[in-house]
Structures are given as C-alpha cells and as structure tokens.
C-alpha cells in the first residue's frame, strides 16, 4: 500500500500533508494535491493519480472525476510551456481567431497538441481577465497582451516548428 504512495516524492507528500492539516477531511485536499503534483511533474499520470488517491484515502476513480473536471489539471503530458490562448468574446472581437491560425501555422500544432520538440502545448482558455488588452495569451506564467498575428515574436525562434 505504501509503495503506491512512495511514487510521490517526500517533498510532494509534505506539501500535500500541509494542505490536509488545514481542513477537516483528507480528501478535501484533492484539488490542492493534484496541483502540487502537477507543479513538480508538469502533469498528473495514472500512477501519480493512484498515489494521491491513496494518500488522501479516497478512490482513484473519484479523484479522476475531480481531476478531469478542471481545465488546469492535465491528465496527459504537456510541453515545457503551456500556451493558453484566450478565445473568449473580447479577444474574438479583436481578432483572436487570426492569432490562433498564425500560431498554429508557426508551431505546427492545433489545440490540445504539443510541438515535436516538446516545447509548447497549445490550449484555448476562457477569458483571461485582460480584455482591455485583447487579444491575449499566457505562455507559462507570463501574460502576453495586444497580440498581433503578424508578429508573434513573444515565442522564441527555437520554439517554432516552421
């Protein structure tokens, strides 16, 4: 039983236990635990999911039901950086579809795909709360605003597939 948990690092376990200590039930830390493991590994594998479920004393099925509910928990491997391109209304009014087309062409990937070199994964995201600077996207933790499909220099040249 503990072997399953042991696939998590001591650091991950201690961060998760810290969250559990703040609340009345171990399984109440499910989302935090998923995010902690994702922070360390980039995504949540089946193996990690089973280990977290064991640690939180809940079933892996229930935890997967939670993991797949949320947009920002990745159950498949992602690239070194995730590009979150806003596809909501204010960005649409300012040309995000053109930006998407150019970005896809430049990286050689569509939504949900990762570049061959493993650098970028492209995902759509609902309104990023920066509608006054539309169109916008996040590359990793960085917000990029006033995107222009003719100039995507925010992506380093090595990242481009073309």
């Amino acid at each position, binding site marked *: 039983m503990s072997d399953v948990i042991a696939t998590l690092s001591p650091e991950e376990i201690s961060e998760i236990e810290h969250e559990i200590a703040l609340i009345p039930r171990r399984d109440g*830390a499910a989302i935090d635990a998923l995010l902690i493991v994702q922070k360390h590994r980039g995504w949540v594998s089946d193996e990690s999911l089973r280990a977290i479920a064991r640690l939180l004393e809940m079933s892996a099925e229930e935890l997967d039901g939670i993991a797949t*509910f949320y947009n920002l928990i990745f159950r498949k491997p992602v690239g070194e950086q995730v590009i979150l391109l806003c596809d909501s209304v204010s960005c649409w*009014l300012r040309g995000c*579809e053109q930006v998407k087309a150019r970005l896809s062409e430049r990286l050689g990937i569509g939504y949900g795909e990762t570049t061959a070199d493993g650098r970028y994964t492209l995902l759509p995201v609902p309104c990023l*709360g920066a509608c006054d600077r539309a169109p916008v996207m996040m590359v990793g933790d960085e917000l990029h605003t006033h995107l222009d499909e003719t100039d995507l220099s925010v992506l380093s040249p090595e990242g481009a597939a073309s």
Partner: protein
Amino acid sequence: MTERPLTQNIRADGASTFLADYEANGGYSGLRKAVSSMTPESCLDEVKNSRLRGRGGAGFPTGMKWSFVPMGEKAGPGHKYLIANADEMEPGTFKDRLILEQDPHQLLEGMMLAAFTIQADIAYVFLRGEYVLAAERLMQAIAECYEAGYLGDNILGSGYSLHLHLHRSAGRYICGEETALINALEGKRANPRPKPPFPQVAGLWGRPSIVNNVETLCNITHIITHGADWFQTLGRGEDSGTKLFGASGNVKNPGVWELPMGTPVREILEDHAGGMRDGYQLRGFLPGGGSTDFLVEQHLDLAMDYDVIGKAGSRMGTGTMIVLDDRNCPLGMVRNLSRFFAHESCGFCTPCRDGIPWVVQLLDRFEQGQATEDDIALLEEKAAFIGGIGNTHCALAPGAMEPVNSALKYFREDFERHITAGGCTYNGAAGRH
C-alpha cells in the same frame, strides 16, 4: 476624503502597493477602528446603511446577506468562514484583476472587516489559477499582515482572531457560482449545491459562510473607515458608492475606470473609452459581462444603476461592458459566448448540458448558410426555455441565454440575412482588416 476610494492606490506604472505604502495612505485604519471601537453589530449596521450592493453580478444587498449569518451561541460550535470570490472568469470581465494585482491589502482589509462583522475565524481568497501575478502579490501581502499582527491570533490585542489562506483554483467558470465555489474549496467537483440551505447558514464544511466578490469587499474597507453616509454621497443616481466600470471591444481606449454609480453609459463609452475606433460604429453592448442582455444606441443615456439597467431589460452584471461594432457579426459574437457557456456548463442539469450545445449548433447552421425561417423560431423557443428561471439548477444557463435572446430582439435582420444570403456576410473579426 477621496472620491475614488477603490483606485486611490493604483499607480500608473502597474506596481503593487505593499504594506508600508498602504498604511501611509491610511490603510488598516478601518480595521483598527473596528476592532478597537466597534462591535460586529455596529459594523453590520454601517454596511446596511451604506446600501452597498454586491459587485459580483447579482447586486444583492451586502448588509442583508450578512444579516442571515447566525451569531454568538446560535452559530453552534465550530468555524465560520469568509470567502473572497476572486474567480473572475465571466467573459469580458477584467475589474477584480486590477485590485488583486495592484492593491492586495485593500481586499485583505475588507475581508478582515467582513470576517469581524460575521465573526468568522477563517477566511479564503478563491483566486482563479491563471492569475499568477495576483497570487504572488497576495501571498506577499498576506505574509506582511501576519508579520504586522493584522492576521493571526488576537489581532491588535483585540481578542479577535482570523486566519486567512489563498486557494488557487484549478479552473472552471462555474467555480465562481458561490455554492460551486464552496464545493471546489472542499476539494470536490464544482457542481452548484441546492439552496436552501443557504451558505450563510450551512456553507463550507457545513458551517456558516459568506462569499463576496472582491470589489464588494474592497468597498467594505472604505465604508467602515469613512462611514455609510459618506459612501452614499459617492453615487450620482439611485445607487451608492463608486464602481469599477470597464469597456472592451473595438473602442479607442479600452480599460477600467472607477466612476460614481449612476454614471451614464455614454460618458463611459465616449469620455473614458474614447468612443469607437476609427472606421467602426457601435451596434450594441453587453453592459456587464458576457451573461448580460444586449443594449443598443437608444440606451446610451441610461445611468449605470442596478434598477435602471434592469428596467431597460438587461443587467448591471459586473459593470464591464463589451462593445459590438458594425464590422463584427452579432451572431458570431453570440456563438462565441454560447460556446463558452456550453464548455463551462457543469453538466448537472439537462437544459444547460444539452441545450446550450444545441443553441451553438443552431447558430452554426446560420453561419454556414443552412438555416431556415423555422430555425429562428426554434432558436427563440430553445433560448427562452433554457433561460427560463427555475428550469435549471443555477444561474449559468439563464445568463448564457441573455445575449442570445437579446440578439434575436435587436439584431433580427442579421438572422434573416444569414438565411437570405446563405451564410455570414461579415468577413470575420474586423479588428484585423
């Protein structure tokens, strides 16, 4: 006393105001005043008298909401919770980000005062995951508060204790609905809960809980510091206080501005947003984010007050307007919004889970030139049903249908033209042509 309390610490360079500067500008005097010379009852009276209405979208009177929280022995044993709703995922809404990134202490002080009023001992900021910079700055501000004795046990020697934590969401629009938010905080899927029981009585972990929007809580800071009477004088019309209003779309100067409640739409769109960009004309606007009904030119002189906008057939919502121009297709805009709502539906009830994707498909038919006259009637019927109050478990579905219903009303000729012209005659997002 400032007339722009919410943005008094916002700096042009976008930097954050941390503790020393916040205090130098009068910060935490409200908290000092409350814990030293006020009672939870007198704080509640002040908030009630201010006539503050919630800034998260529904406009519910804040003082009344708090008055349902059981106090003293009536609360029973255990914790009470105060939660700041910083989820901000409504399309076209970008107001809370400003405060979260640039004046985190203003929110924290408001939360402390709200928590003191309902005698909560634990508080959470529920922050959307993508707000990375806000998370960093909030964490720094929270640490400063523990250091300074504004948070923790026995705050400023008053005997009152409050612990405050930051929760970063894993992302879903429905998390912003207050009972879904509570489920997310409990580590569950964010399905809304049935009401009653209301969170004020049985919320987080079954205990009394208040969920308020970020901007609402920031107002509390100023209401306690300067008093309800002063707050009332800030509004220009029926409602009291100021509001963070915004405009996005093809206006010259998109942005967010703190203005008196009751500021006319025209003033916001023309004086602050600078009018339409060259070569664009106004077709309509959603006054308060993606789940509000379109208004059009004839409504430009309305005051941005809750009831005024309500009587015109729309809602104040979040006060951040999305402007539709003449080069973008109204159906395309509504389709974009409907796809968002279809994706973000939590899937709990059928009209929302299956009905909104149906609306999207119908709008696709118009776009692709396959729609007939019957489809207009069908769309009307579906939108009216899905949007009908009481037909779904929460307000997501009715909100989703507000732009659809109002587009059918104001942009009817565009629906007709998609049928007669065999598809969309706009050439896509005009911002680029």
